[in-house]
């Protein structure tokens, strides 16, 4: 049974398609692991003589361990269900592997304890277990805390953070450029995409996770972290402003501002190359459409991209060609030309979105017809 065939299981497909199943599985997983840790901690603290010391060890473990096992079974079940939704990504994740090894270690540690000190009744009423038992108790507590930490880190390294690191490059001063109306988030990193991403085919195609494992960006991450911020910047950099002083074209004026525009256009060019990556994923595991019903879920987008790869690549190429046209205007510092070229970029985006992102959106289809998007 390969990882891919696990992902293809109907149950994995249902979880991916549902808006609620993955979050619910995750929540049950947290309840279960909290119970595993909370109950085994009571036993470990008894072993090392910190709590419940006045009570015989056998009574403490008799009370707790059945709950530990039941909770562990529940955690394993929910964990497996989450795993099969995106088996290859989890399997490649260093923290996932570390977590599995640590759970194995916890099991071996428990076995050693049960076969040695745990079997002896001599210390049942004593304050703490003899030598080897103490070691097992300490190892158990440490290992389970590490299991929790590894588990939490998986969630950050298979989705957001790996990509976030790719944008940790010098920011352009967005605020001064836009006259201070940047809609910046709390992180202040709105202008986001990197200098490195501006070189086509640069190492930005692969974001390096904290452990050094290479994680290719998904379509959603590319859009969210590179294409959208760059697009937003570009569409705001040149626009017609109408107020009581009449209407005029607002456009970059200084060399630095034109250079920023070129950087953003290069981000779009390199994003187009990244979209061509063979086997590209639609979105990170657990990601759900923000407007379900209108937008397709990642699983649908995945199917549609995979079965129309040539067409999808052609759409990506169209984005690059449109960015090339705009780059010529930027080189010539021609606001009118840039404005026209940006319309070409907008149409390139829209035509791909209509095909892959929100094919069911009737209103968008109508609007596109009126705007002449093909």
């Amino acid at each position, binding site marked *: 049974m390969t990882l891919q065939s696990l992902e293809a299981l109907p149950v994995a497909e249902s979880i991916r398609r549902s*808006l*609620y199943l993955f*979050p*619910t599985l*995750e*929540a049950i997983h*947290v*309840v279960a*692991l*909290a*119970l*595993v*840790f*909370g*109950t085994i*901690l*009571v036993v470990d603290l008894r072993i090392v003589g910190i*709590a*419940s010391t006045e*009570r015989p060890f056998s*009574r403490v473990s008799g*009370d707790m361990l059945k*709950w530990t096992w039941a909770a562990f079974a529940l955690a394993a079940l929910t964990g497996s269900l989450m795993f099969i939704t995106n088996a290859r990504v989890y399997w490649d994740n260093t923290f996932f592997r570390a977590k599995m090894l640590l759970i194995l270690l916890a099991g071996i540690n428990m076995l050693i304890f049960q076969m040695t000190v745990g079997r002896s009744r001599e210390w049942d009423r004593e304050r703490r277990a003899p030598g080897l038992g103490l070691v097992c108790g300490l190892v158990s507590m440490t290992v389970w*805390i590490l299991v*929790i*930490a590894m588990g*939490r*880190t998986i*969630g*950050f390294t298979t989705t957001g*953070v790996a990509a*976030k*690191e790719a944008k940790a490059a010098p920011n352009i001063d967005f605020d001064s450029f836009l006259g201070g109306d940047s809609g910046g*988030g*709390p*992180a*202040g990193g709105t202008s986001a995409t990197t200098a490195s991403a501006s070189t086509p085919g640069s190492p930005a195609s692969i974001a390096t996770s*904290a452990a050094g494992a290479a994680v290719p960006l998904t379509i959603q991450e590319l859009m969210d972290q590179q294409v959208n911020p760059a697009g937003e910047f570009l569409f705001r950099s040149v626009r017609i402003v109408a107020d009581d002083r009449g209407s005029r074209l607002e456009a970059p004026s200084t060399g630095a501002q034109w250079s920023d525009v070129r950087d953003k256009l290069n981000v779009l060019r390199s994003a187009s190359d990244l979209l061509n990556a063979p086997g590209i994923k639609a979105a990170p595991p657990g990601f*759900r459409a*923000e407007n379900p019903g209108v937008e397709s879920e990642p699983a649908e987008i995945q199917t549609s991209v995979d079965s129309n790869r040539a067409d999808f690549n052609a759409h990506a190429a169209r984005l690059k060609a449109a960015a090339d046209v705009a780059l010529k205007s930027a080189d010539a510092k021609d606001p009118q030309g840039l404005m026209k070229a940006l319309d070409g970029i907008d149409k390139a985006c829209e035509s791909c979105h209509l095909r892959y992102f929100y094919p069911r959106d009737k209103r968008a289809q109508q609007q596109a017809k009126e705007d002449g998007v093909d």
Partner: protein
Amino acid sequence: MKDFAAWLGTTWLSVAIQKNEVWAIPTIQSVHIVGIGIVLGCVLMLTLRVLGMAAMDLTLPQVTRRFGPWLTGALLLLLVTGLALIVGEPERELLAFSFWLKMLLVACGAALSWWFQRSVRKHEQAWETVLLHRTRVRALATVALLIWIAIIFLGRFIAYDHIWGSLSGSKA
């Protein structure tokens, strides 16, 4: 609340957490989950004892003396790490419907725990002889356990606040 969240995001502590978010947020969350594990273990033991399903060789006051301080300590740990998570990602937390529902339940859970521990301390005899056998008291113990489980659910759902549709204030 939006303005407050935005302001909170500019404070030095928030900026410090954001600068190191790659490791800071997962680390604080992990400590938070360790705290949740301790709370749930303690609440489970107290509930099981009230229901007569565990630790029957000990009196309820004895069990409360063993788990009460750990419960209170873990709740303080959750308060500190929880505040750090709010300061680190104000908009993610403060604009989420799940977050506010969770805080409501945390207030209920904490109040229940405080009242229970105080009552057991004050009326040891009554608890051991009469109160433990009242159906209402047993039901309340079960409700307390369920409240903490619901709190864990809501905590995880903060990451998926869009499932609440228009109730959610976060557009992220």
